[in-house]
């Protein structure tokens, strides 16, 4: 086909640009037909002339205006999507051209958007996995925990007594069952070690639906009285302690002295209910004859077919109301039956009652970073939109449909956000994998089994939503604003570059906001960096090398008297120290009757108007060497190690001694514990010891005011065992178990914590927190700095013509530069002013909670404004200099 001559192409394009697609199509198609007829009948030349003339006639302004209103009829077929796509493709090409025109700026906006989106997507996905997603089990969304509803609206574990009526009569829940976790000493694997065993009602496996990898799951018969003790292994335990032995079935292992046969292995990743590594049957009558207030098992259930969680809650309300009426009111002041019960999703129950709150808050925090990114990218696009404001307004005046203009102006945002979104998904994927690996490394089997992070459909959907939000924020709002502009006002705004009043106001306000945001961020970043430093440097006041901690609880029915309990613990302490690998051991307990951390103290000879004015101290009952727990003797003596210490001796920490007996020795002074009004025994201070950190390690008064009394004075039911061990934690477990078994085989020590390992884990967490914080604030800083620089320099560039005029009228270079710096300075001061108020409020709030060096605030108040001023002034100075150096005549024509 012959095509019209080259000269007409430009006109054609103009017609297309000036008219809505259907109208220009209509005319161009006819013109082409006429052209072809003429080219065939006469010559190509005359056809070309005719064609060009027709195009020119079409472009006459009155005709254009009339054509834009070309009559539409109701019966017209709706424009087909194919056509709309052609438009869209055109708009996209246009946007791409705009982006390609300034590649550096475009790359920066994409990076900034990707970062903001990445943080948001990662945070959402992480929290979604932890809290909102259903359990990764068949029908996982129907599996719930049954929790007790407290009068204050929180949930907690159900009393075993209250579980019974629910199991008996609930209809909207099925397979209601209980589970409890207990420590077991596992022998028969690679090395003996303490593990958690989940004692479960065998219904649990029905709820979980998951078939075993080997053998069978637990059956109802396994829970019957007199049944053979059997256990099902978790995949991880099977691998780590039994080398993944395929012939594991029917092997007999020893669990805390009980010969137990292994009947099955569960598949990898299965840890239901929470983080089980080994399952045993909970005896069928275990919870049947318990007294109220004695046992609080976990309870699981499945929503019955067709039932919703809300229905279950309503039914639980009814059941518990009836149950409360039937229950005798306890006359000993004990706990009454639960108010009601609730069916709670496992992940939510795991996070606690604040789960949803946490979810919202953390997502908001991440979104605010995205918002900042959007503001930045939006800024850049707004300045571009402002520059194109006249073009847009002319097109509006000519009748272009607003949605098309908005769409076209959003084209850049669409491209930026889409590319950014793709990069963000990659970032989130990397982040989630890393998080998964990290959590595996610090807690191989101590995390809920559904905490497996990675990209999933929800995450991709969320990313899509974030991308759309980004498009709307960065493109939609400025585009909508621009197309709503009053056509008349913009067309008559002939100020040739000295900014129109509206555009100038927007840019100036944006600069002020940016300055404020960046200043607050820098302030927060600085203080939190300082804080993490503080955390990393906390000296807990003790040597933790080789220190192990465990707990030992005595069964109520076997240790009825204070003497029996004290005797057990004192003997345990001696037995431990007799072992060659244990150089020192101590037992400690917080005091009973609420006199634990921060108990009131009464000093002899002092009077207190109210208990609020009494000094407070952490009170610990202790048997054995205090040095084991990292406390050094400063003066006086420690408790006698050979033989029971007199129950009325006490040790006090340095800080307490200095505060209470300034300028005199604390030795021989007397003190009482508890409320001044209550008569309690006097303790005589026999020694002063070094401080250890007590309570909140970040609090202002973390330097411990501590009092130690002999264990015999308290005779606790449960005590912590603290001992040093020459070997590793596995050897230490055996030592402890051997010592306890020697005294009473019915007593089972709790899990052993290796202080070194714990501190290492804490250290790693702190380092992680520091890195994450640093990365977040670093990124936020990049955002803010680029934003500020982009805005201020752009506002100067927009005024290039004004600079030209000033220069042409005789202003010196220096005067122009100074003028612009002064203008920028005004916004700087306003922004910093806002930031100062916010930062001051934040520091007042922080000072309530944290013991911060006040110099930090001073440094921040000086350094932050200095850095920001430097950025802003540089951002003004550089482009102003450039504009000033242009010949005035060039500057005048600068577009």
């Amino acid at each position, binding site marked *: 086909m012959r095509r019209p001559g080259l000269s007409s192409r430009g006109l054609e394009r103009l017609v297309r640009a000036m008219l809505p697609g*259907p109208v220009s*199509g*209509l*005319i*161009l*198609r*006819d*013109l082409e*037909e*006429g052209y072809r*007829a003429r080219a065939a009948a006469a010559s190509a030349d005359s056809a070309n002339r*005719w064609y060009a*003339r*027709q195009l020119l*006639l*079409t472009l006459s302004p009155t*005709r254009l205006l*009339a*054509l834009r*209103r*070309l*009559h539409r*009829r109701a*019966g*017209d*077929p709706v424009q*087909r999507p*194919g*056509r709309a796509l*052609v438009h869209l493709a055109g708009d996209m090409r246009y946007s791409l051209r705009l982006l390609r025109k300034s590649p550096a700026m475009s790359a920066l906006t994409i990076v900034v958007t990707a970062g903001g989106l990445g943080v948001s997507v990662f945070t959402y996905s992480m929290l979604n996995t932890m809290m909102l997603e259903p359990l990764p089990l068949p029908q996982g969304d129907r599996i719930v925990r049954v929790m007790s509803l407290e009068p204050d609206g929180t949930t907690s574990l159900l009393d075993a007594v209250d579980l019974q009526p629910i199991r008996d009569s609930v209809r909207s829940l099925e397979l209601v069952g209980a589970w409890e976790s207990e420590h077991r000493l596992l022998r028969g694997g690679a090395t003996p070690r303490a593990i958690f065993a989940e004692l479960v009602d065998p219904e649990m496996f029905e709820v979980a639906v998951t078939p075993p990898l080997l053998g069978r799951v637990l059956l109802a018969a396994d829970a019957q009285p007199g049944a053979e003790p059997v256990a099902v292994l978790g995949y991880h335990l099977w691998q780590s302690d039994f080398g993944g032995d395929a012939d594991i079935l029917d092997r007999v292992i020893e669990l805390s002295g009980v010969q137990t046969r292994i009947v099955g292995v569960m598949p990898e990743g299965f840890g239901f209910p929470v983080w089980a590594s080994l399952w045993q049957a909970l005896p069928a009558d275990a919870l049947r004859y318990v007294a109220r207030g004695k046992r609080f098992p976990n309870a699981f259930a499945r929503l019955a077919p067709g039932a919703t969680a809300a229905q279950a809650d309503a039914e639980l309300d009814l059941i518990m109301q009836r149950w409360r009426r039937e229950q005798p009111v306890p006359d000993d002041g004990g706990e009454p039956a639960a108010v009601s019960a609730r069916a709670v999703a496992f992940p939510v129950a795991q996070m606690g009652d604040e789960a949803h709150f946490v979810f919202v808050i953390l997502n908001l925090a991440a979104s605010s970073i995205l918002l900042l990114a959007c503001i930045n990218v939006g800024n850049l696009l707004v300045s571009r939109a402002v520059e194109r404001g006249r073009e847009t307004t002319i097109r509006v005046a000519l009748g272009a449909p607003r949605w098309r203009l908005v769409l076209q102006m959003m084209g850049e945002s669409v491209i930026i956000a889409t590319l950014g979104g793709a990069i963000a998904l990659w970032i989130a994927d990397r982040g989630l994998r890393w998080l998964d690996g990290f959590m595996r490394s610090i807690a191989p089997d101590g995390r809920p089994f559904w905490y497996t992070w990675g990209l999933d459909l929800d995450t991709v959907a969320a990313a899509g939503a974030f991308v759309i939000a980004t498009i709307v924020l960065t493109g939609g709002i400025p585009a909508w604003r621009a197309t709503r502009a009053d056509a008349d006002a913009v067309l008559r705004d002939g100020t040739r570059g000295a900014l129109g009043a509206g555009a100038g106001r927007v840019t100036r306000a944006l600069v002020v906001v940016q300055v404020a945001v960046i200043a607050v961020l820098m302030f927060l970043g600085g203080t939190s960096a300082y804080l993490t430093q503080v955390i990393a440097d906390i000296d807990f006041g003790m040597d933790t090398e080789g220190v192990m901690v465990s707990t030992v609880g005595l069964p109520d029915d076997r240790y009825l008297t204070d003497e029996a309990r004290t005797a057990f613990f004192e003997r345990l302490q001696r037995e431990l120290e007799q072992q060659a690998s244990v150089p020192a051991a101590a037992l400690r307990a917080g005091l009973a009757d609420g006199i634990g951390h921060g108990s009131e103290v009464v000093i002899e000879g002092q009077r207190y108007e109210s208990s609020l004015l009494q000094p407070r101290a952490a009170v610990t009952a202790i048997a054995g060497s205090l040095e084991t727990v990292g406390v050094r003797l400063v003066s006086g003596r420690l408790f006698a190690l050979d033989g029971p210490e007199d129950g009325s001796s006490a040790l006090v920490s340095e800080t307490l001694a200095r505060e209470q007996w300034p300028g005199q020795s604390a030795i021989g002074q007397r003190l009482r514990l508890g409320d001044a009004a209550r008569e309690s025994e006097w303790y005589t201070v026999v020694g002063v010891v070094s401080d250890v950190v007590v309570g909140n390690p970040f609090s202002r008064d973390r330097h411990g005011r501590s009092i130690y009394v002999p264990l015999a004075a308290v005779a606790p039911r449960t005590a912590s065992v603290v001992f040093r061990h020459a070997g590793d934690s596995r050897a230490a477990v055996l030592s402890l178990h051997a010592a306890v078994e020697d005294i009473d085989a019915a007593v089972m020590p709790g899990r052993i914590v290796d202080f070194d390992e714990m501190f290492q884990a804490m250290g790693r967490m702190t380092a992680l927190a520091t890195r994450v914080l640093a990365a977040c604030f670093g990124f936020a800083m990049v955002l803010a700095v680029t934003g500020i620089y982009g805005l201020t320099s752009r506002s100067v560039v927009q005024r290039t013509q004004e600079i030209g005029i000033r220069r042409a009228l005789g202003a010196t270079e220096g005067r122009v530069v100074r003028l612009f710096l002064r203008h920028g300075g005004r916004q700087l001061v306003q922004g910093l002013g806002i930031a100062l108020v916010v930062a001051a409020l934040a520091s007042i709030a922080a000072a309530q909670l944290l013991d911060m060096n006040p110099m930090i605030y001073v440094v921040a108040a000086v350094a932050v404004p200095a850095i920001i001023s430097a950025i802003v002034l540089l951002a003004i100075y550089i482009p102003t200099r450039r504009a000033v150096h242009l010949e005035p005549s060039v500057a005048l024509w600068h577009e």
Partner: protein
Amino acid sequence: MGKGSNLGEFEQVVMLALARVGETAYGVPVHEEILRTTGRDVAIASVYVTLSRMDAKGLVTSVLETRADAHGRPRRFYALTLAGWEALRRSRAAMNQLWHGVEEPEGLS
């Protein structure tokens, strides 16, 4: 009959051309017909503007072709309505009335 419903000259030209072309009347045939009969090479755009205006008045009707060409460009076909015919007839009657009894001075042509 109000003053506004009188046809303008170019409107009459376009409508008569439309009537002469018949069924497949879109921009090009109408334009060619005007060129052939009056010798005026008008702008096709003007033809559309006029047709569109008369469409709005109900003197012509139009339908958008459901299938566009290879470039995605649609085509709109026009036809006179009864009201359009009526308006044309009135215009011709008015002209005839005016011409009636008018004697051209001798020697003008």
